[in-house]
């Protein structure tokens, strides 16, 4: 297969373009710093994006809107639990993952038992998660343990630690999606839920695991983001609602479900950071920046979906 026919190609091309345009302005200086920052910030987007990608693969109507609230709740509770004590880092991580897991179970039960459309279920669940976070936070800003903070801001062999974490997760996600029976079932579910059920696919198990996995990744991201930025904040997840969906779409996964790819998530995540920093370095204000970002996303999605229609 020729490379530009791969669904993820355009996200990487657009990211490279934004990178080059930024460097043009600085005559090629600070390229290393920009790349390092891009890798770090893209990591957060990539991890939540992977979770969202699995959910979107389930097909039309499936989306997890509770990602920001799950991140906030997991970040808040885990930092509160650790209280700055380095000995509690691993249990603290478990708390964050556990919160995410619980949020996923809650989302799934709303969808399954009450038969609420996922978009409504996860949105209303997010109000509950956010409220719990507000209630338990009470304006406190607890610092993460120093060693954890150092890890999340540090680098190994010049590559940001967070990027390494996100890369490992991406590889695991790729194996699950492309090589495992679960990936097959997920894709079958997304193409035709009824036919999947009639072919013996355990569709409820697939749905449950997907929503739980997505929320657990959101919990992990909340933990890492809170540690990275020196404490949990109640609005820390806000921007990741749009970003988690945008990286999936820009990455070339089908919004109609059934067809997803992992490399595109990374391409989309890098692009989403680089486009903002490019607009920043060209000195555009926040309003213009948002408009241009939105316009570019629409453009990419339009181009990508046209391409699909022709094929």
């Amino acid at each position, binding site marked *: 297969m020729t490379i530009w026919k791969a669904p993820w190609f355009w996200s990487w091309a657009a990211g490279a373009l934004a990178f080059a345009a930024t460097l043009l302005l600085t005559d090629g200086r600070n390229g290393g710093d920009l790349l390092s920052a891009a890798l770090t910030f893209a990591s957060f987007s990539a991890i939540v994006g992977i979770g969202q990608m699995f959910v979107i693969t389930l097909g039309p109507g499936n989306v997890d809107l509770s990602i920001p609230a799950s991140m906030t709740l997991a970040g808040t509770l885990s930092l509160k639990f650790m209280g700055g004590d380095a000995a509690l880092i691993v249990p603290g991580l478990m708390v964050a993952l556990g919160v995410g897991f619980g949020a996923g179970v809650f989302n799934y039960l709303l969808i399954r038992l009450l038969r609420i459309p996922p978009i409504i279920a996860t949105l209303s669940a997010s109000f509950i998660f956010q409220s719990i976070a507000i209630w338990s936070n009470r304006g406190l800003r607890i610092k993460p343990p120093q060693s954890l903070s150092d890890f999340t801001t540090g680098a190994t062999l010049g590559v940001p630690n967070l990027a390494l974490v996100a890369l490992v997760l991406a590889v695991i996600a790729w194996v699950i999606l492309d090589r*495992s029976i679960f990936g097959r079932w997920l894709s079958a579910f997304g193409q*035709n839920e009824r036919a999947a059920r009639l072919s013996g696919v355990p569709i409820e198990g697939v749905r449950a695991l997907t929503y739980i996995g997505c929320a657990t990744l959101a919990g992990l991201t909340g933990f890492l983001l809170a540690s990275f930025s020196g404490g949990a904040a109640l609005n820390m997840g806000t921007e990741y609602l749009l970003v988690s969906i945008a990286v999936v779409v820009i990455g070339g996964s089908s919004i109609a479900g059934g067809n997803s790819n992992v490399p595109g998530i990374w391409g989309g995540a890098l692009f989403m950071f680089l486009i903002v920093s490019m607009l920043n370095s060209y000195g555009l204000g926040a309003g213009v920046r948002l408009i241009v970002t939105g316009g570019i996303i629409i453009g990419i999605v339009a181009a990508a979906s046209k391409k699909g229609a022709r094929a």
Partner: protein
Amino acid sequence: MATEPLVVLSNARMHFGSVRALDGVDLSISSGECVGLIGHNGAGKSTAVNLINGGLTATDGDVTYTLPDGSTATGAAAARAAGVRSVFQELSLCPNLTVEENMRVPQRDLTGAGWRKRARVRIAAALDAVFPGHGIDAGAEVGDLSLAERQMVEIAIGFSDGPVPARLVILDEPTSSLDAGIAGQLTDYVRGFCAGGGAVIFISHMLGEVFDVATRIDVLKDGKITDSRAVGDFTQQGLIDAMGHVASEAAKQAADPNRIGDEVLTTDEGLSARRGELVGLSGLAGHGQAAALARFYLARSAGRGQVRNPDVCFVAGDRVRDGVMPLWSILRNVSLTALASMTRFGLVDREAERALGADWKKRMGIRTDDMGNPILSLSGGNQQKALFARALASSADIVVMDDPMRGVDVGTKQDAYAMIRAEAEHGRTFLWYSTETEEVCQCDRVFVFRNGAISAELTGDDINEQNILAASFEMQGQTS
């Protein structure tokens, strides 16, 4: 004027690809007539209805309407202008709209201020005329009405006053959800309507009703009208004989008595099957066969351990809705059900998957040079072979088939019959719903469905078209 035909079909043909739904039909309906149109599944009834109401344009031949002013015309607009109305069996009302709002859909003159009020007057008058004492409020939302009430509204809309008065009303299974009393009101009204110069085409599987209301009965078989007589010249048994094929009994393969073993399944409806048995489900389409199969499959495949070692597998007939994974290759489509048993630590053994694909490509004769090609690159018949392979490649002992030969060419059918026989010899049990009587006659035992329940269980030499037809159609006023 009573002799002037309202609609004339002359040598009308309707072909869908290579399927000849109507193969040269001559039919004329005059005012004052009530024509009972009967025939088995796929005989061409619906196609004939759609030709007459202008929904389809004949491939060949003419459909001519006589307009109220005496001139003749053709085409869908002429059908409307001639006052042709259809009432469908599958309810076509919008459930989220009120009764009066639904009037607006066929009656385009209901516009401008106060259209709801005018619609209300029209529908209320029609309901009062056809179903006196109906108790239906024209302002009620259709979704809140019972099935019978919806059908009554649908019928009333067909007979209601409108921009063009109703002159020919086509009733397709109008009484399928009405009780006897209400159905009686309808037949009374139809008789009055025809006596007043209107015409009706009446399609029903309740033969007694047809005898009760029709002035003439036309029998459709294989896209042709094979018999047309005044109602008095038919008997119910004669009608059933006329619908069936004339003695085309192929010598049935003698079933090996040792093949069939112990009972392996029973359902609440009364279906049962034994090991190695081919069990057919028959009757008119939409009488609960597919629903019974789906219920059985879903109940039997939900338990623990069913994923790796399923008891049952499913062959879809409606490929787009129930079967094909359109984004995938042929290989992935074939391996889907069996794949759970080919994993290590949750990862797919792709070598084993390829071997399975190659094996079933050969066994089913799937025509492709590479199983990695997209499933949609295959013809319909070959896609169906892939779906057969998906089910048979699993370890399940019970195979549920929901009209799997739909739209499949003769060659593929013969291959599939042979494959099914061979698998049954190996102890697999088949539950086979088919709309083709000829296929059902291949089975060891046949359950005939009518109105969602089993109306007959046929075995051995009793499995023939006559008996299946007799059990499919209700014999009113006769002791069975």
